């Protein structure tokens, strides 16, 4: 298992290539850190500094996840802000936006304050997202302006779609001037019905209720139409199907202020993962066909989709060991995100640097976060990656409180070897 420890006062990362996603420039360079900030290497005392060998590695900006569920308050048995932060750091992330579908949901400024206060001193920066509607009821708008003032970065009822189109339109209008995105889980609940997995020959074969691609596409289409009309910022999470990718492409061409994300599991897995009734592969929206998977990959490559987001959704083993109807939707994803996405996208023709962009500048643009260049004086938010290292994802790699992932045992190309967070740093085990 990798280690997470207090960041030493001085650190020098040697022998790697620094890739700055803000300028897209790479150069061979040792990277020096003092008291959590980047400094000139000459300022580091070699006797005091922790030295890190980064031979063969890229050193770049820490990743940003625009979509994770940390379950605090209410379901701390699944994940807390603290355990989720450690999982994020182990995955190469230094900033995480957390969804508000906690218990109770984060639907008022006090909730936003709670998350921010509980996140102080954690190794990654936590950005709270507030709900769109009170208690995620899908009807009454929550105090969006007050939550924004308290520090909410975006608004979403994620986990639940806003089924009432007028409510979504109202929300887009209400926050339009703020320029923050409304993130709507794109599934028509009536079309999704009891769907457990993608509707296909396989779902028929398994006797499982199917969730058709039209459930996603119909909602994406409706939401894009509303965003286009209102002019508000719409972000579409976890795109899973060819149809949805095509719709986003079309609406972007028409000039809509629309962004969208893809998850590593929709990039790397298909509905075949459910064939053995594996509850760990039960996720919403569902894993779909190979054609859909390829369309999502293509969407990231041509820029239709803006970034990679994990949709890290921890659940207890007890919950996932239930039968497939009762087991909840969702899988964890922070620790496996880079391995899975990089393996898939590099095979599809992207460079490691382009994949890094989808984990850094892409999500920063979606959420309106500033990314500073990797130059002396800036905060050290770094990830060290070995792009060619092959590794097998095991329980030992998981720092999350949960273990619900169908990816255990999969071999990836490209590994996070270290992450420098706010006050902590993660170091992967040597040659494991």
């Amino acid at each position: 298992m990798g280690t997470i420890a207090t960041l030493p006062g001085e650190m020098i990362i040697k022998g790697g290539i620094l890739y700055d996603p803000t300028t897209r420039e790479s150069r061979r360079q040792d990277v020096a850190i003092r008291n959590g900030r980047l400094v000139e290497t000459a300022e580091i005392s070699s006797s005091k500094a922790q030295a890190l060998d980064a031979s063969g590695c890229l050193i770049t900006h820490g990743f940003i996840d625009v979509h994770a569920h940390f379950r605090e308050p209410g379901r701390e048995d699944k994940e807390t802000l603290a355990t989720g932060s450690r999982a994020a750091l182990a995955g190469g992330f230094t900033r995480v936006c957390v969804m508000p579908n906690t218990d109770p949901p984060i639907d008022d400024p006090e909730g936003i304050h709670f998350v921010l206060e509980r996140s102080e001193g954690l190794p990654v920066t936590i950005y709270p997202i507030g709900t769109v509607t009170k208690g995620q009821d899908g009807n009454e708008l929550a105090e969006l302006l007050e939550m924004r003032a308290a520090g909410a970065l975006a608004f979403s009822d994620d986990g639940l779609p806003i089924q009432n189109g007028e409510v979504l339109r109202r929300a887009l209008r209400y926050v339009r001037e703020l320029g923050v995105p409304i993130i709507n889980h794109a599934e028509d609940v009536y079309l999704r019905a009891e769907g457990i997995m993608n509707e296909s020959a396989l779902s028929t074969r398994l006797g499982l209720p199917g969730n058709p691609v039209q459930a996603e596409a119909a909602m994406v289409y409706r939401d894009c139409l509303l965003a286009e009309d209102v002019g508000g910022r719409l972000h579409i999470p976890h795109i899973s199907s060819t149809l949805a990718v095509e719709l986003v492409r079309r609406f972007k061409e028409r000039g809509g202020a629309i962004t969208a994300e893809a998850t590593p599991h929709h990039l790397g897995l298909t509905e075949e993962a459910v064939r053995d009734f594996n509850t760990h592969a039960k996720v919403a929206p569902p894993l779909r066909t190979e054609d859909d998977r390829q369309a999502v990959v293509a969407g990231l490559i041509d820029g239709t989709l803006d970034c990679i987001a994990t949709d890290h959704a921890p659940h207890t083993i007890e919950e996932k060991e239930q039968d497939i109807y009762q087991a909840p939707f969702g899988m964890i994803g922070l620790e496996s995100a880079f391995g899975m996405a990089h393996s898939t996208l590099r095979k599809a023709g992207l460079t490691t640097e382009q994949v890094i962009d989808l984990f850094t500048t892409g999500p920063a643009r979606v959420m309106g976060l500033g990314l500073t260049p990797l130059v002396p004086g800036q905060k050290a938010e770094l990830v060290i990656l070995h792009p060619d290292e092959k590794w097998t994802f095991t329980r030992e790699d998981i720092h999350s409180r949960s273990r619900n992932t169908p990816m255990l045992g999969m071999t990836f190309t490209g590994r996070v070897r270290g992450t420098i967070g706010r006050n902590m740093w993660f170091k992967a085990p040597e040659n494991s």
Partner: protein
Amino acid sequence: MSEPTVTLQHLLGLEGVSKQDIQILLDTGFRFREVLDRPIKKVPTLTGINVVNLFFESSTRTRISFELAEKRLSADVTNFTASSSSLNKGEGLKDTIQNIHAMKMDAVVMRHPAPGSTKQLSQFVDAVVINAGDGTHEHPTQGLLDMMSLQEKFGRLEGLKVGIIGDIAHSRVALSNIFGLNTVGADVMVCGPGHLIPPHISELGVIVNGDVDEVLSWADAVNVLRIQRERMGEGIIPSVREYRSRFGITTERLARHKREIVILHPGPMNRGVEIDSDVADGDQAIILDQVLNGVAIRMSVLYHLLAPHQPLEET
């Protein structure tokens, strides 16, 4: 003399079960039919073997059929009927698995509302697992008894044309019939209200036809599925009248087809809805043969999975 043995460890479904294994199970089923015709219908084959019938859904017919099969093979039988409500209280598969471990059972016959539940169970327990119906997935012993009844009637299965009529989408019987019949070389046509036919079912190697009369013109036998009347309350099926008129196997409809069509029904029947009483009780129906064959084929399955090396003659 050693008996032919099946390659199966569990019977979780008919998908993927080889033609040879199906034929062995059917052949042994016919031999157990002879046992059922004896004055004393009990053999000592599974003496000392513990079998639990674990039913999370009510099912009088299947449970009694399994229980009879187990008792006629002299197994020690435990019945456990859990209400669906206990599942909702969180008494899920995990508890079931732990209990079965603790009770040191040799075999579990399980009916459960969730597809794949028997497969999940088989991954965690040492016991032999037999699927007695897992939600809308499979009901493999029903599929086998249907095949046994067809083979008894026609003397063959290969090349037979079988129609399955009714709510295909919610039927575990349909899937087991499709997988089993496809494997042995029979042709299958499915028919029912369009929205109750799964959209991709033709990829499973069946023909889809919305016209019952066309199915009856084509088929050697039709398996008529029960319509769940609660679906009318849900507005999924508009009315009994319309269903009967469009999809029911009525006396008049059958009379229009001047050919012998064998009628199967997995029961329980809604007489006067999907099937008329005259048809169900008529000469063309082999519904009671299915019930008898159900016991025999379940004896065959239990025998092959639990006592495969014991020669049948010694029973």
